[in-house]
């Protein structure tokens, strides 16, 4: 399994190198994209194998597939990998989403000088580094990859993004880099502390976790804050979130899916893997601070999402609200809530990806992300409207969709320990329904209207290329324009892209058990590391929910 894990890390990176080499030749562009898709498919197969080999149930070790090689002995750092359930679900989600977004971006028309193979190379590089981030069991290695993952994403936004891409890319990079540097201070501090306490400096996660309980609170708090700052920027929690709407709006849709769906998950993943186990006392002490930020995020993100007119920014703000829920669940310190948060991380990835892709398909047709340019799209593209609705319902956590289980677990798990915060956060559910349905109503229902749908809007040129549509008749007079949309419904390729996501939304909505089983050992280990116990002995376990 260690070999498979290493392969999961290396295959995308090799793929990135191959595609990058092919990107320099224009005529190899298509072949480069195909090769990239092939590499991502190999990753997917590898993930399936790893998932199959991952043992679950009581008594299994938390980390599996571990391997470690000395890297820089002078710093006591090793190249050490190993996955627990939380990391596995993240890596699996990544492996599922990358082929999907590569498929989505297949037909994108790129600005001159940019090649699809280059885009694919950057995507695969992001995937490889992210696998490393989730699988690292050495704090130094984690930090190194945490910073390294900025670089491919920076170029993805800066080279392939929208009109304000330079601004967005630099803002994204600087925010994350600043957070990373603050974390670096804590990483070094942890190393120095381990030098004085263990006699020899180490970055081994397990050794540091053993030591962490002995650190006095006065040492833990600054170290905690360093890690927390980096993760709160990444996640993002509210006062530090302003880069996300810009980056999300300017990134190409496929890049945005990975950015919001997975790169940001590193923040909440970091809470679970690093801040809680390494600084248990500080985590307990400062939980009210984090919870306050989380709840502000839930409400603020929801309100701003409702106020957006740009659809990509809308998706970014809904994510800010969701990250609030995830942080709430993590810092509530009950196993239900933490399990809910871990599951939420998966579900949010799926539903956001779907929402982003549906928006991307709409933008591809209409040529603009502005909601005010659209209206009544459901008449012209009923399947697209349906996809958006499914994604939207999953985002607002309708029972029967995947997100419901996780949001429910977070709220019910957090209520016993943090009733006030939970009650306020519950209000966010109402807002979620508001913002999703309102957008749906404005864009997809009613008669055909809006310049992007029926007029000579900015998408007029691209509309002609959507060949498969049956009512893209531009030759009619003004009367026909008012009643006939310029574009048609989803193509076969687009349906193929969306189908697995729809399946995941529904399957995880009804059968979250297998995923929860995988998450369970990591969740209970996190609970014991942070030194928290569940407030009351719960009733008989239902549908595989860990207790």
């Amino acid at each position, binding site marked *: 399994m260690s070999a498979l894990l290493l392969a999961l890390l290396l295959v995308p990176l090799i793929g990135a190198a191959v595609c990058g080499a092919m990107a320099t030749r224009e005529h190899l562009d298509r072949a480069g994209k195909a090769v990239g898709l092939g590499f991502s498919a190999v990753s997917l197969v590898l993930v399936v194998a790893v998932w199959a080999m991952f043992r679950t149930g009581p008594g299994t070790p938390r980390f599996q597939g571990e391997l470690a090689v000395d890297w*820089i002995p*002078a710093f006591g750092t090793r190249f050490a990998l190993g996955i627990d359930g939380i990391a596995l679900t993240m890596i699996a989600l990544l492996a599922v989403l990358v082929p999907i977004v590569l498929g989505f971006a297949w037909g994108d028309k790129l600005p001159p000088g940019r090649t699809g193979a280059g885009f694919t190379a950057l995507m695969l590089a992001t995937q490889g580094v992210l696998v490393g981030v989730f699988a690292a069991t050495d704090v130094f290695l984690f930090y190194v990859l945490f910073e390294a993952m900025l670089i491919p994403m920076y170029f993805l936004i*800066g080279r392939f993004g929208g009109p304000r891409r330079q601004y967005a890319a*630099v803002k994204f990079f600087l925010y994350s*880099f*600043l957070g990373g540097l603050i974390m*670096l201070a804590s990483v070094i*501090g942890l190393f120095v502390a381990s030098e004085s306490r263990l006699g020899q400096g180490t970055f081994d996660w397990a050794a540091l976790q053993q030591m962490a309980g002995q650190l006095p609170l006065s040492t833990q708090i600054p170290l905690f804050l360093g890690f927390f700052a980096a993760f709160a920027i990444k996640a993002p929690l509210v006062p530090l979130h302003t880069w996300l709407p810009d980056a999300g709006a300017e990134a190409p849709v496929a890049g945005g899916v990975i950015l919001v769906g997975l790169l940001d998950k590193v923040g909440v993943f970091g809470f679970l893997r690093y801040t809680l186990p390494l600084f248990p006392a500080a985590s307990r002490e400062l939980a009210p601070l984090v919870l306050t930020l989380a709840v502000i995020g839930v409400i603020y993100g929801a309100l701003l999402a409702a106020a957006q007119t740009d659809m990509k920014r809308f998706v970014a703000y809904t994510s800010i609200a969701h990250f609030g829920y995830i942080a709430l669940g993590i810092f509530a310190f009950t196993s239900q809530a933490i399990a809910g948060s871990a599951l939420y991380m998966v579900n949010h990835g799926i539903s956001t990806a779907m929402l982003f892709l549906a928006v991307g398909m709409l933008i591809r047709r209409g040529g603009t992300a502005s909601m005010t340019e659209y209206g009544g799209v459901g008449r012209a593209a009923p399947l697209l409207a349906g996809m958006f609705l499914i994604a939207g319902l999953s985002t607002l956590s309708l029972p029967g969709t995947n997100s419901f289980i996780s949001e429910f677990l977070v709220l019910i798990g957090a209520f016993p320990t943090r009733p006030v915060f939970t009650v306020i956060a519950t209000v966010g559910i109402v807002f979620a329904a508001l913002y999703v349905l309102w957008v749906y109503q404005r864009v997809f229902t009613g008669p055909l209207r809006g310049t992007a749908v029926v007029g000579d809007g900015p998408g007029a040129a691209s509309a002609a290329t959507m060949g498969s549509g049956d009512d893209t008749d531009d030759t009619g007079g003004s009367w026909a324009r008012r009643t006939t949309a310029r574009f048609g419904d989803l193509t076969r390729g687009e349906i193929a892209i969306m189908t697995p996501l729809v399946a995941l939304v529904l399957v995880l909505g009804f059968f979250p058990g297998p995923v929860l089983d995988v998450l369970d050992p990591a969740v209970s280990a996190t609970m014991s590391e942070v030194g928290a116990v569940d407030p009351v002995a719960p009733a008989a376990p239902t549908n595989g929910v860990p207790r």
Partner: protein
Amino acid sequence: MTGPAFPTVDYGALAPMLIILGAACVSVLLEALLPLRGRGRAQLTLTLVAIVAAFLAVVVRATSGAPAVTTLAGALAVDGPSLFLWGTLLALAVPSVLLLADRSIEPGGAFVADPVALAEAESRERVSAGTRGGGRVGGSGGSGGSGRAARGTDAVEGHTEIYPLVLFALGGMIVFCAADDLLTMFVALEVLSLPLYLLCGLARRRRLMSQESAVKYFLLGAFSSAFFLYGLALLYGYADSVKLSDISLAAAGSLRPDSLLFGGLALLVVGLLFKASVGPFHTWTPDVYQGAPTSVTAFMAACTKVAAFGAILRVFTVAFGSTVWEWRGVLWIVAIVSMVVGAVLGLTQTDVKRMIAYSSVAHAGFLLLGAMAVTPAGLSATLFYLLAYGFTTVALFGLVSLVRGPDGEATHLSAWAGLGRRSPVVAAAVTFLMLALAGIPLTSGFTAKFAVFSAALADGMTPLVIVALVVSAVAAFFYLRLIVLMYFSEPAADGPTVSVPGPFTTVAITLGVVVTLLLGVVPTAVLGWADGLSFLG
């Protein structure tokens, strides 16, 4: 009456220094004896052979396990840090000399000593260009009958004085970072500085700027030498000796007035910090970096910093290690000023060379953090940082020299717009080096920063480390700005061309980039060497 006692000389230990200074003398003779035409090649060969031989001597000495010694009556200490610094200096000298020797980018080389000859040759060039078809004009009508500028129409022959100058400067640096008494250190300071002043003024293009930079460097350098000398005098008054170890002995438990000791230290350190371009003594740096020929800037930025910090480390550790708690507070402020000034003023620059100059001021602040720690960890971290930073800088200046407009190098930032489109390899290399300067992991810049910051943190300088991290983030902005310009902007229609580098420059740049990558990914060997070194005395 006995005759003067001659000190014993450990030739084995001094071999690297003797090779370099000996080669410098031979080089002067070659300059006098050989005809101009073949001189460049002979000088280059001699210089490279001398540097490589000296490097091998250092390696042999370091691996033989010979004990650390002081020799020449205690004037020089050949100990672990000396050998590491010598190795670093000589290793950095190779790409620097290769850059200096390049003639493919600027036909005839980037150096001209005699402006009259240059002007005459250029006027001939113009004439021949004007009367194209009217036969070649040129031949032996050069100035002063010396045969200079006799190559005809295509190029004005560059000058070869640079080789002995570089060798003398290098010899001075080698002595400087091994000097165990302050007088030797002062002499070495002058030996390394004077050739650098000259080298700065030799540019073929933009001569006025080049000469201005030389004068500025010379005047300010003279001031700083005076400071150094004044400090030396005060310390001699205090300790009755110029030997570093005697100063340390005198400082430990004496009843002599501290004002002499710390006054002397302050003045001495001003002189050293000036050479290391630590703020607030950095004011010469941007002008000189910008005005000097780029290959000289590369040599100066990499090697001078190594030598200066080598001396700073030795003075702090050997002479003032016992009083570290009394003087370190002042240096906290100096380090903060250096980091903040470097990063903040770097933000406002519009010229690539000036930007790198300010970045070097910020980096000098980071280096000072490690040097102030006065612990084994601080020493090894600083040594590693010097090596890593040196190679990154040399390669970066090599790349800067490739981007050229109609009058020489195009160093204005706007000229770099869209470089990623026009010249992807150069842009990728610059990007990588910029990320290294910013301290992104998997580059040597990160490993070095990590080592220095952890040493500083372990020695109780937490606030300084936090300032350093914030400054790193600020500085990242202007490194990033260049990357943005190169990749995300459209190239200007009349933008500069990117020269195809000749073999020398290619080797120098490749060396720098490869070392930057290797020290980022597998730094173990070098860190292992730097670890566990200690000063003698």
